[in-house]
């Protein structure tokens, strides 16, 4: 791997070291996005608690019901690249408004389903599209607020992403027990949309919308350009990004990483139960993994920014892959907990480096399209990883082959990261460059 250095601060003068942390509206934006993620994604994260009530009322099979979950994941993945471009073109705030409206309609209609195809249409398709539209533009929007110290902002966001599942399932379980599943969808629809609306009111696409500078901006930095002010320039830069190998490879790396941990996340409970661990203890393994992953989600983006993005991501992928080998010799609860802790470190670190890579490769250009394409890889990876363990178990009566697939995909992801371009200089022209210079650079690429 070629040596990596932290991206030098653009236009920073000697002696002008930006503070690592200080109060700025960027932190309000990070908090808004964290809440949007937790509220908007909670219903999918807690989908498991709806299986039993739906089976009891309609007699639908578990496989039939969980197909709606799988469909929703795949639809979100397929729509992600378009959702990212939507955020680049019209701004994240408008995308959030559209996504929130679709989310509300999808939730209300899901609470009214009477046939299983209704569930596929409302939960699978409508909510799948809604989640992509309001979730995918959020990370690129947060990036707009950080000129420097992006790792810190992304770390807080990624950490919050891990908290959602821990809160959503018990809350949904309580609501179902108290009000029934129909009303739970409606209560969640009204409650979530009220919170999301409040968040949208306070949200701003970029610092200049409130006459502010991005976090970490220094005197002498060029003024920030409005992302959606010049659609032709956004299209041109999206084309620049698509011409880079990193645009494609980051998506396939995210795919590999997600296959690697989806196998474990979906099948660790049956694997542990198969080894004689009680169901309650086995279920707590997921809680341990999620808890540990919150810490590494927080730390990895900061480390990736300061110590070399590719190196830190490679280590996370290696930990994720190599830890799974332990499962071949794991037969008691203590060893499963040890596995959960170490695996949680790698799993939590798997995704934290991507926003930092986007910044290093594409600078301050709008990266919604690139991020959306990476989310497509991640979504498909989660779907394949979730599917493969069940198929392997049906055929062989064990999980051995699925575990090897998890190990090989994580290690292949680590190898792919090492083959990515070095991060010491951007791969595309400078977004903030004057137009004549930009034209010259575009011509040089075309040649």
């Amino acid at each position, binding site marked *: 791997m070629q040596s990596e250095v932290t991206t030098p601060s653009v236009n920073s003068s000697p002696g002008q070291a930006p503070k690592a942390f200080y109060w700025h509206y960027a932190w309000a934006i990070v908090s808004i996005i964290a809440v949007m993620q937790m509220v908007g994604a909670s219903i999918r994260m807690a989908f498991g608690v709806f299986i039993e009530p739906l089976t009891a009322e309609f007699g639908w099979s578990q496989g039939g019901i969980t197909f709606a979950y799988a469909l929703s994941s795949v639809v979100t993945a397929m729509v992600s690249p378009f959702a990212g471009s939507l955020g680049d073109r019209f701004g994240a705030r408008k995308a959030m408004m559209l996504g929130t409206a679709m989310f509300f309609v999808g939730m209300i209609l899901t609470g009214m389903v009477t046939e299983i195809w209704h569930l596929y249409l409302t939960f699978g398709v409508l909510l799948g599209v809604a989640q992509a539209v309001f979730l995918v533009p959020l990370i690129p929007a947060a990036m707009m607020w950080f000129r420097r110290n992006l790792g810190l902002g992304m770390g807080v966001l990624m950490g919050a992403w891990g908290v959602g599942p821990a809160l959503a399932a018990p809350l949904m379980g309580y609501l179902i027990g108290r009000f029934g599943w129909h009303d739970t969808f409606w209560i969640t629809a009204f409650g979530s949309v009220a919170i999301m609306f409040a968040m949208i009111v306070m949200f701003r696409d970029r610092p200049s919308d409130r006459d502010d500078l991005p976090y970490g901006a220094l005197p002498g930095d060029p003024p920030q350009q409005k992302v959606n002010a010049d659609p032709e320039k956004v299209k041109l830069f999206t084309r620049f990004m698509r011409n880079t*190998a990193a645009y*494609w*490879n980051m*998506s*396939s790396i995210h*795919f*590999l990483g997600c*296959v690697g941990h989806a196998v474990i996340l979906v099948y660790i409970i049956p694997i542990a139960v198969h080894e004689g661990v009680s169901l309650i203890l086995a279920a707590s393994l997921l809680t341990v993994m999620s808890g540990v992953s919150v810490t590494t989600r927080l730390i990895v983006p900061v480390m990736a920014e300061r110590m070399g993005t590719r190196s830190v991501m490679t280590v996370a992928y290696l930990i994720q892959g190599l830890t799974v080998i332990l499962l071949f010799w794991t037969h008691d609860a203590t060893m499963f907990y040890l596995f959960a802790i170490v695996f949680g470190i790698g799993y939590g670190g798997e995704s934290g480096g991507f926003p930092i890579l986007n910044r290093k490769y594409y600078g301050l250009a709008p990266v919604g399209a690139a991020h959306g394409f990476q989310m497509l890889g991640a979504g498909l990876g989660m779907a*394949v990883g979730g*599917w*493969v363990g069940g*198929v*392997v178990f*049906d*055929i062989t009566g064990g999980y051995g082959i699925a575990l090897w*697939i998890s190990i090989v995909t994580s290690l*292949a992801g680590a190898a*792919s990261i090492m*083959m990515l*371009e*070095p991060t010491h*200089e*951007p*791969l*595309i*022209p*400078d977004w903030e460059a004057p137009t004549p210079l930009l034209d010259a*650079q575009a011509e*040089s*690429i075309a040649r």
Partner: protein
Amino acid sequence: MNLGRRTFRVFRLPIQFVMVMAVSAALVIYLGAWAADSNKESRAEAFGAPTVQNAGDIAVSPPELSADAVAWEGVFLWVCPLH
């Protein structure tokens, strides 16, 4: 700017990306066809009759076998050259 860097490409896509997608697709097809083959065999053992239909052969299917199940199995078996 890193514009000078060139990557080996297949159909204008980086070879690394193409390999990951091709191997993953091959694995999904192989595993899907393996599962379909396994289902077919277990049904044949249970009912003593072939279950993936040929044209005009609808009557031999057991009644509880859904058309959807046969469809996905048929697609995987048709696509996979090894099954």
